[in-house]
């Protein structure tokens, strides 16, 4: 059940009605949990049990960590919890990948292959439950008041499939507020949802028509077309993913719950460190807090810091998918972060900042990010390498020259979506009491109705 589907509209309307009709806060929260499981069950009903099982298990681990007085015992419980969670993720997501990698290490020896169905959103869920038990262990968060809180942290439907990754410290206080469906909440949430829908349906889905076609046979296209496709994919993935996040935030806001933003204008970043502060914020901050810091962060010297950065990004890449090209994507970003650190701590200190330098920095960052998207989009590593070689005019650069005109038409809308996405909460908001606000609302609704592609593309991050 995608947010941009008619089923979701019906589902959400039913939920809002129930929330409006039911008076008891306790009942409302049970309904919310039940509806979240129903939402997840739409993909594969079998994995609702996995979802519930992970919630029960981690609620138990959380209680044991909290109640254990001996620090060693606390450590044992947290280690056990993290290992159990990573084992679930490892089995479903990486088992066959490691088997295949081991097979090639052993010179192609046949090691078999299991038919494992990947439960949707397993990577997001695993990170959330790990943060729950680690936070209790570190003492940065209290354990949940009851099982339902942990179950909702995992299963709360707006963020369930593709994040943002929620932290208990932020989400539990939200859950302890009453769920109130008011006109103001609906207005605020509805506008966020609408913004996300515009990004997804009008921009990302339209660009996918070009991107998917080119990436199906990338080497048949000219170097210039490949560059356009790479830029288009960069825009597509931003609008697709941030659109999903906006719709998640909007849905939660309608219920009076706050979910933190996941993107703040990532494509204005002037270096790769800034990019990761603006892109998929909930993942990058999770990696920082639970992996980078656990590895020692910058506390063990420069060399160790650089190694930690590389490791974090390599694992971040692997988190996205069981393939070497995701590792390469993560590794490239890790390398980018290390190079940027070296620059800022060395030559960068002596170079005065000016508009030209800022412009060059931005351009270099964008080119770098776009090239890394090639490895993210094409899971076959050697094919991705060939595409990059062609983009840089190494070898035959001829091929079909396709200047996808919608890309140029959509560019101003992408810039607007970038800005509106950030300013929306504070300044830019439709005032439906005025003629202008109503006109904008109808104009956008008609745009969605008249201009959406007939075959919507699935959300890119659903595969993770």
């Amino acid at each position, binding site marked *: 059940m995608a947010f941009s589907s008619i089923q979701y509209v019906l589902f959400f309307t039913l939920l809002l009605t129930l929330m409006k009709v039911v008076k008891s806060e306790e009942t409302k929260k049970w309904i919310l949990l039940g509806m979240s499981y129903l939402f997840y069950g739409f993909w594969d009903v079998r994995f609702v049990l996995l979802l519930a099982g992970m919630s029960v298990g981690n609620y138990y681990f959380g209680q044991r960590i909290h109640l254990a007085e001996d620090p060693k015992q606390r450590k044992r419980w947290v280690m056990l919890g993290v290992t159990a969670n990573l084992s679930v993720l490892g089995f479903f997501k990486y088992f066959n990948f490691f088997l295949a990698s081991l097979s090639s290490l052993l010179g192609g020896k046949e090691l078999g292959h299991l038919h494992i169905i990947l439960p949707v959103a397993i990577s997001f869920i695993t990170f959330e439950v790990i943060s729950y038990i680690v936070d209790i262990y570190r003492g940065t968060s209290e354990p949940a008041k009851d099982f339902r809180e942990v179950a909702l942290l995992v299963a709360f439907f707006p963020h369930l499939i593709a994040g943002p990754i929620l932290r208990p410290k932020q989400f539990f206080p939200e859950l302890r507020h009453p769920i109130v469906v008011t006109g103001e909440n609906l207005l605020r949430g509805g506008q966020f949802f609408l913004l996300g829908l515009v990004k997804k349906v009008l921009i990302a889905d339209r660009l996918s028509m070009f991107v998917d076609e080119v990436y199906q046979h990338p080497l048949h296209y000219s170097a210039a077309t490949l560059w356009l496709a790479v830029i288009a994919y960069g825009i597509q993935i931003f609008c697709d993913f941030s659109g999903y996040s906006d719709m998640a935030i909007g849905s939660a806001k309608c219920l009076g719950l706050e979910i933190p933003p996941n993107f703040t204008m990532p494509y204005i970043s002037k270096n790769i460190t800034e990019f990761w502060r603006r892109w998929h914020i909930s993942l990058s901050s999770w990696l920082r807090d639970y992996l980078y810091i656990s590895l020692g962060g910058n506390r063990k010297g420069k060399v160790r810091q650089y190694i930690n950065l590389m490791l974090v990004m390599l694992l971040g890449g692997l988190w996205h998918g069981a393939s070497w090209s995701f590792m390469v994507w993560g590794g490239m970003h890790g390398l980018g972060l290390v190079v940027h650190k070296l620059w800022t701590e060395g030559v960068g200190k002596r170079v005065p900042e000016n508009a030209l330098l800022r412009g060059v920095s931005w351009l270099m960052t964008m080119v770098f990010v776009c090239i890394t998207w090639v490895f993210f989009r094409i899971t076959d590593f050697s094919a991705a390498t060939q595409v990059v070689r062609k983009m840089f005019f190494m070898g035959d650069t001829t091929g079909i020259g396709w200047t996808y005109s919608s890309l140029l038409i959509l560019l101003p809308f992408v810039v607007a979506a970038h800005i509106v996405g950030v300013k929306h909460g504070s300044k830019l908001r439709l005032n439906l009491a005025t*003629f202008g606000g109503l006109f904008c609302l*109808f104009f956008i609704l*008609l745009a969605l109705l008249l201009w959406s592609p*007939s075959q919507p593309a699935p959300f890119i991050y659903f595969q993770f």
Partner: protein
Amino acid sequence: MAKWLRVIAAFGLAVLCWEVILSFVSGRSSGYLKLANLGVVARPGTIIEAREGFAVSHINSHYTRGAEFDIEDKSKQRVLVLGDSYSMAAQVSEEETFERVTESLFAGHGQSNVQVINAGQFGKGPAYYLSYGKGWADWLQPQFVVIQLNEGDFTSDFYDKGKDAYVKRSGNELSIALNPKKQSRFANLLPRLSILTRAEYIWQEHTGSGKPASAKKKTPPSSFAEEARWFMQQAKAAFPHVAVVYVPTMDYHNEETLNELPLLEVSLREAAQAEGVPYVDMRPQYAQHYHETKQPCHGFNNTHLGSGHINGYGHRLLGEALYALLNPLLKP
């Protein structure tokens, strides 16, 4: 009251804005007419095609694309092109259409009296060309008739009862049947609004109602030999001087197989040879063009390059091929 008026006014203005925007970015239709001798044809006026390529077409008072002409002018040697949207070519400008390319090639070789009439109409099929085509020929009195065919004519349109003319089979006999369905009174009015044209298009895309009945069944015939032979026989009987041009569908991503003739094209070539109908299949020219330039002859920058209607390259090559076909057949 004032609140509701504000809502209605805001909605009305939004609709108006989209009507203007859509007429340029989606397209505009001049509407349709159902005529006794020509079937359903585009109404005279302006058509804007923006979904695929971008071009403005003018439908003249003879329901054909292009400038007005004098039907009584006996100095002209007329070639009537019957076809569907590939011939109408709303995706490209008037000068780029294969009809104008052929005409200008004749003019360039001292035969400026050759007039190629673009009678292409959206969504037509073989039965239309053989039935209402005679109506066109009786009215415009051409010296030569060219029928343009493509894959859909035989894989989906041939027996499609939704068309204004279709082929009916009784036993081993094939015959043409006309669709008695009358045109809706509103059909002439509604398509003129771009917002409604767009809404209709979206509805068809979502429900699949725009696709021909046979296409929905997805059962392509195992042989086209009988249909192809019958079509060539009927074309020869209907028009004293007739040629057939075939616009193939190409899979440019399989470059090695671009020159391989599919079953339908083999059947059409053999049928044309057997019946002595001049025939051109554009596959070799399009394949060669792709080998040399890496540019497909189908598709546009705003759709999928490589699929869909033929683009400027496709029309130029088709125009040249048609000139080469007609040149020895038309007297100077």
